[in-house]
Protein backbone atom coordinates (compact mmCIF):
# COMPACT_ATOMS: atom_id res chain seq x y z
CA UNK A 1 0.00 0.00 0.00
CA UNK A 2 1.21 3.48 -0.77
CA UNK A 3 1.84 5.89 2.09
CA UNK A 4 -1.01 8.18 0.97
CA UNK A 5 -3.44 5.25 0.96
CA UNK A 6 -2.44 4.32 4.49
CA UNK A 7 -2.77 7.92 5.68
CA UNK A 8 -6.26 8.20 4.16
CA UNK A 9 -7.31 4.87 5.63
CA UNK A 10 -6.05 5.76 9.10
CA UNK A 11 -7.88 9.11 9.02
CA UNK A 12 -11.09 7.31 8.03
CA UNK A 13 -10.72 4.71 10.78
CA UNK A 14 -9.84 7.33 13.39
CA UNK A 15 -12.97 9.34 12.50
CA UNK A 16 -15.28 6.29 12.51
CA UNK A 17 -17.48 6.28 15.61
CA UNK A 18 -19.40 3.06 14.94
CA UNK A 19 -17.41 0.43 16.90
CA UNK A 20 -18.32 -2.42 14.56
CA UNK A 21 -17.36 -0.57 11.40
CA UNK A 22 -14.24 0.81 13.02
CA UNK A 23 -13.07 -2.71 13.95
CA UNK A 24 -13.75 -4.16 10.47
CA UNK A 25 -12.06 -1.24 8.74
CA UNK A 26 -9.01 -1.62 10.95
CA UNK A 27 -8.99 -5.38 10.35
CA UNK A 28 -9.13 -4.67 6.63
CA UNK A 29 -6.15 -2.32 6.80
CA UNK A 30 -4.04 -4.64 8.98
CA UNK A 31 -4.90 -7.63 6.77
CA UNK A 32 -3.85 -5.75 3.64
CA UNK A 33 -0.56 -4.66 5.21
CA UNK A 34 0.39 -8.19 6.34
CA UNK A 35 -0.85 -9.71 3.08
CA UNK A 36 1.75 -7.67 1.24
CA UNK A 37 4.38 -9.37 3.41
CA UNK A 38 3.01 -12.86 2.67
CA UNK A 39 0.85 -13.44 5.75
CA UNK A 40 -2.90 -14.00 5.67
CA UNK A 41 -4.65 -12.99 8.91
CA UNK A 42 -8.06 -13.97 10.28
CA UNK A 43 -10.33 -12.07 12.70
CA UNK A 44 -11.29 -14.10 15.78
CA UNK A 45 -13.10 -13.36 19.04
CA UNK A 46 -15.49 -10.49 19.68
CA UNK A 47 -15.03 -8.67 16.38
CA UNK A 48 -15.85 -11.85 14.47
CA UNK A 49 -18.93 -12.47 16.62
CA UNK A 50 -20.02 -8.88 16.01
CA UNK A 51 -19.58 -9.30 12.26
CA UNK A 52 -22.19 -12.09 12.27
CA UNK A 53 -24.59 -10.98 15.01
CA UNK A 54 -24.44 -7.18 15.51
CA UNK A 55 -25.12 -8.18 19.09
CA UNK A 56 -23.25 -5.25 20.69
CA UNK A 57 -20.67 -7.74 21.95
CA UNK A 58 -17.37 -6.36 20.74
CA UNK A 59 -15.15 -4.14 22.86
CA UNK A 60 -12.36 -1.79 21.85
CA UNK A 61 -9.91 -4.41 20.65
CA UNK A 62 -9.55 -6.44 17.48
CA UNK A 63 -8.13 -9.96 17.81
CA UNK A 64 -6.23 -11.29 14.82
CA UNK A 65 -4.56 -14.65 14.23
CA UNK A 66 -2.31 -15.93 11.47
CA UNK A 67 -4.21 -18.05 8.96
CA UNK A 68 -1.51 -18.77 6.36
CA UNK A 69 1.27 -19.81 6.43
CA UNK A 70 0.80 -21.62 9.74
CA UNK A 71 3.73 -19.99 11.44
CA UNK A 72 4.17 -17.06 13.76
CA UNK A 73 5.14 -13.74 12.25
CA UNK A 74 8.67 -12.69 13.24
CA UNK A 75 8.63 -9.93 15.84
CA UNK A 76 10.73 -7.60 13.74
CA UNK A 77 8.35 -7.93 10.80
CA UNK A 78 5.31 -7.30 13.05
CA UNK A 79 6.87 -4.10 14.34
CA UNK A 80 7.78 -2.95 10.83
CA UNK A 81 4.32 -3.56 9.42
CA UNK A 82 2.46 -2.07 12.38
CA UNK A 83 4.91 0.83 12.37
CA UNK A 84 3.82 1.59 8.80
CA UNK A 85 0.29 1.88 10.21
CA UNK A 86 1.45 4.41 12.83
CA UNK A 87 0.80 1.88 15.58
CA UNK A 88 2.14 2.26 19.10
CA UNK A 89 3.30 -0.60 21.33
CA UNK A 90 3.88 -4.21 20.37
CA UNK A 91 5.06 -6.81 19.70
CA UNK A 92 1.74 -8.60 20.32
CA UNK A 93 -0.59 -5.72 21.05
CA UNK A 94 -0.73 -2.25 19.52
CA UNK A 95 -2.84 0.86 19.68
CA UNK A 96 -3.91 2.04 16.22
CA UNK A 97 -6.40 4.73 15.22
CA UNK A 98 -8.21 4.61 18.55
CA UNK A 99 -8.47 0.82 18.92
CA UNK A 100 -6.24 -1.96 20.19
CA UNK A 101 -5.02 -4.72 17.87
CA UNK A 102 -3.88 -8.03 19.33
CA UNK A 103 -1.96 -10.51 17.17
CA UNK A 104 -2.46 -13.88 18.85
CA UNK A 105 -0.46 -16.41 16.83
CA UNK A 106 -1.58 -19.18 14.48
CA UNK A 107 -5.36 -19.75 14.44
CA UNK A 108 -6.76 -22.85 16.18
CA UNK A 109 -9.59 -24.22 14.09
CA UNK A 110 -11.21 -27.66 14.07
CA UNK A 111 -14.11 -26.85 11.77
CA UNK A 112 -13.94 -27.96 8.13
CA UNK A 113 -16.17 -25.17 6.78
CA UNK A 114 -14.48 -22.30 4.98
CA UNK A 115 -13.29 -19.15 6.66
CA UNK A 116 -15.75 -16.40 5.69
CA UNK A 117 -14.59 -13.32 3.87
CA UNK A 118 -15.69 -9.67 3.84
CA UNK A 119 -14.58 -7.38 1.05
CA UNK A 120 -13.42 -4.61 3.34
CA UNK A 121 -12.68 -1.06 2.23
CA UNK A 122 -8.90 -1.58 2.22
CA UNK A 123 -8.77 -5.26 1.32
CA UNK A 124 -10.34 -8.63 2.11
CA UNK A 125 -10.98 -9.53 5.76
CA UNK A 126 -10.98 -13.22 6.75
CA UNK A 127 -13.28 -14.15 9.63
CA UNK A 128 -13.31 -17.30 11.69
CA UNK A 129 -16.34 -19.35 10.66
CA UNK A 130 -19.60 -19.06 12.63
CA UNK A 131 -19.75 -22.84 13.13
CA UNK A 132 -16.54 -22.77 15.19
CA UNK A 133 -17.59 -19.61 17.07
CA UNK A 134 -20.98 -21.07 17.94
CA UNK A 135 -19.67 -24.33 19.36
CA UNK A 136 -16.85 -22.56 21.19
CA UNK A 137 -19.27 -20.05 22.79
CA UNK A 138 -21.52 -22.93 23.76
CA UNK A 139 -18.65 -24.72 25.48
CA UNK A 140 -17.72 -21.55 27.39
CA UNK A 141 -21.39 -21.04 28.27
CA UNK A 142 -21.42 -24.35 30.13
CA UNK A 143 -17.87 -25.07 31.30
CA UNK A 144 -16.15 -24.52 33.68
CA UNK A 145 -19.25 -22.79 35.12
CA UNK A 146 -22.43 -21.29 33.63
CA UNK A 147 -21.58 -18.13 31.71
CA UNK A 148 -24.63 -15.99 30.79
CA UNK A 149 -22.71 -13.73 28.39
CA UNK A 150 -21.35 -16.69 26.38
CA UNK A 151 -24.82 -18.28 26.35
CA UNK A 152 -26.38 -15.04 25.07
CA UNK A 153 -23.73 -14.93 22.39
CA UNK A 154 -24.39 -18.53 21.33
CA UNK A 155 -28.12 -17.73 21.15
CA UNK A 156 -27.45 -14.72 18.92
CA UNK A 157 -25.27 -16.78 16.59
CA UNK A 158 -27.98 -19.42 16.42
CA UNK A 159 -30.60 -16.73 15.80
CA UNK A 160 -28.89 -15.24 12.75
CA UNK A 161 -28.16 -18.72 11.43
CA UNK A 162 -31.65 -20.17 11.96
CA UNK A 163 -33.25 -17.17 10.25
CA UNK A 164 -30.93 -17.45 7.26
CA UNK A 165 -29.09 -14.18 7.82
CA UNK A 166 -25.86 -16.15 8.12
CA UNK A 167 -25.44 -19.36 6.13
CA UNK A 168 -24.04 -22.21 8.20
CA UNK A 169 -23.29 -25.88 7.61
CA UNK A 170 -25.55 -27.54 10.20
CA UNK A 171 -23.99 -30.97 9.70
CA UNK A 172 -20.59 -29.51 10.49
CA UNK A 173 -21.96 -27.74 13.59
CA UNK A 174 -23.31 -31.07 14.84
CA UNK A 175 -20.06 -32.88 14.07
CA UNK A 176 -18.00 -30.22 15.82
CA UNK A 177 -20.24 -30.18 18.90
CA UNK A 178 -19.84 -33.95 19.20
CA UNK A 179 -16.04 -33.88 18.68
CA UNK A 180 -13.78 -34.74 21.63
CA UNK A 181 -12.47 -31.17 21.67
CA UNK A 182 -15.94 -29.82 22.51
CA UNK A 183 -18.40 -32.55 23.60
CA UNK A 184 -21.40 -30.20 23.80
CA UNK A 185 -23.86 -31.94 21.50
CA UNK A 186 -26.67 -32.28 24.09
CA UNK A 187 -26.30 -28.59 25.00
CA UNK A 188 -26.34 -27.64 21.31
CA UNK A 189 -29.47 -29.68 20.63
CA UNK A 190 -31.25 -28.10 23.58
CA UNK A 191 -30.27 -24.53 22.72
CA UNK A 192 -31.25 -24.92 19.05
CA UNK A 193 -34.66 -26.18 20.14
CA UNK A 194 -35.04 -23.22 22.49
CA UNK A 195 -34.01 -20.59 19.91
CA UNK A 196 -36.03 -22.17 17.08
CA UNK A 197 -39.12 -22.15 19.32
CA UNK A 198 -38.50 -18.58 20.40
CA UNK A 199 -38.15 -17.36 16.81
CA UNK A 200 -40.77 -19.78 15.47
CA UNK A 201 -38.46 -21.08 12.77
CA UNK A 202 -37.61 -24.59 11.62
CA UNK A 203 -35.13 -26.60 13.65
CA UNK A 204 -32.58 -27.92 11.11
CA UNK A 205 -32.22 -31.14 13.13
CA UNK A 206 -35.92 -31.95 13.02
CA UNK A 207 -36.53 -34.74 10.55
CA UNK A 208 -39.89 -33.40 9.34
Amino acid at each position, binding site marked *: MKREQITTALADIRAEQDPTLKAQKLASLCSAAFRERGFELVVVGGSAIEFYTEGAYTSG*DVDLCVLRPAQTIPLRLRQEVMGELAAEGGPRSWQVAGLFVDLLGVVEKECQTPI*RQLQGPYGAVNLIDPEELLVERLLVAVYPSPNPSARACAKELLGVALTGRVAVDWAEVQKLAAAPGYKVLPELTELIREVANELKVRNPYDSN
Partner: protein
Amino acid sequence: MNSKSEIPTIPIDRPISWEDWLKGRQARRAISERLAPQGSQRPTSSSDRRLRRQFNGQRGLPFRKTEEL
Protein backbone atom coordinates in the same frame (compact mmCIF):
# COMPACT_ATOMS: atom_id res chain seq x y z
CA MET B 1 -28.92 -12.83 -1.57
CA ASN B 2 -32.25 -13.66 0.04
CA SER B 3 -34.72 -12.97 -2.75
CA LYS B 4 -37.69 -12.97 -0.35
CA SER B 5 -36.58 -10.07 1.79
CA GLU B 6 -33.65 -8.71 -0.21
CA ILE B 7 -31.57 -8.70 2.96
CA PRO B 8 -28.25 -10.24 1.97
CA THR B 9 -27.17 -13.44 3.69
CA ILE B 10 -23.56 -13.83 4.79
CA PRO B 11 -22.65 -16.75 2.51
CA ILE B 12 -20.45 -19.77 3.16
CA ASP B 13 -18.69 -20.17 -0.13
CA ARG B 14 -17.97 -16.69 -1.42
CA PRO B 15 -17.01 -13.30 -0.01
CA ILE B 16 -19.68 -10.80 0.98
CA SER B 17 -19.30 -7.26 -0.30
CA TRP B 18 -19.01 -4.38 2.17
CA GLU B 19 -22.31 -2.95 0.88
CA ASP B 20 -24.22 -6.22 1.28
CA TRP B 21 -22.83 -6.74 4.76
CA LEU B 22 -23.93 -3.22 5.74
CA LYS B 23 -27.42 -3.84 4.33
CA GLY B 24 -27.93 -6.79 6.66
CA ARG B 25 -26.82 -5.08 9.88
CA GLN B 26 -30.21 -3.90 11.09
CA ALA B 27 -31.87 -7.27 10.52
CA ARG B 28 -29.10 -9.12 12.35
CA ARG B 29 -29.21 -6.67 15.26
CA ALA B 30 -33.01 -7.06 15.52
CA ILE B 31 -32.66 -10.83 15.90
CA SER B 32 -29.88 -10.53 18.45
CA GLU B 33 -31.85 -7.99 20.50
CA ARG B 34 -34.86 -10.26 20.51
CA LEU B 35 -32.85 -13.21 21.80
CA ALA B 36 -30.61 -11.32 24.22
CA PRO B 37 -32.31 -8.02 25.11
CA GLN B 38 -29.83 -7.41 27.89
CA GLY B 39 -26.92 -7.68 25.41
CA SER B 40 -24.12 -10.20 25.34
CA GLN B 41 -21.04 -8.14 26.07
CA ARG B 42 -18.77 -9.60 28.72
CA PRO B 43 -18.88 -7.46 31.87
CA THR B 44 -15.12 -7.81 32.34
CA SER B 45 -12.06 -9.19 30.56
CA SER B 46 -8.31 -9.31 30.97
CA SER B 47 -8.10 -6.18 28.78
CA ASP B 48 -10.32 -4.11 31.06
CA ARG B 49 -7.66 -1.76 32.34
CA ARG B 50 -6.44 -0.57 28.96
CA LEU B 51 -9.95 -0.50 27.48
CA ARG B 52 -11.48 1.57 30.27
CA ARG B 53 -8.53 3.96 30.18
CA GLN B 54 -8.99 4.47 26.44
CA PHE B 55 -12.80 4.65 26.35
CA ASN B 56 -13.68 6.91 29.29
CA GLY B 57 -14.40 4.12 31.73
CA GLN B 58 -16.22 1.93 29.17
CA ARG B 59 -14.91 -1.18 27.37
CA GLY B 60 -15.34 0.35 23.91
CA LEU B 61 -17.18 2.97 21.89
CA PRO B 62 -20.98 3.17 22.33
CA PHE B 63 -23.00 1.10 19.87
CA ARG B 64 -25.39 2.73 17.42
CA LYS B 65 -29.09 2.24 17.99
CA THR B 66 -30.71 -0.42 15.83
CA GLU B 67 -32.73 2.14 13.84
CA GLU B 68 -29.51 4.00 12.98
CA LEU B 69 -27.84 0.95 11.41
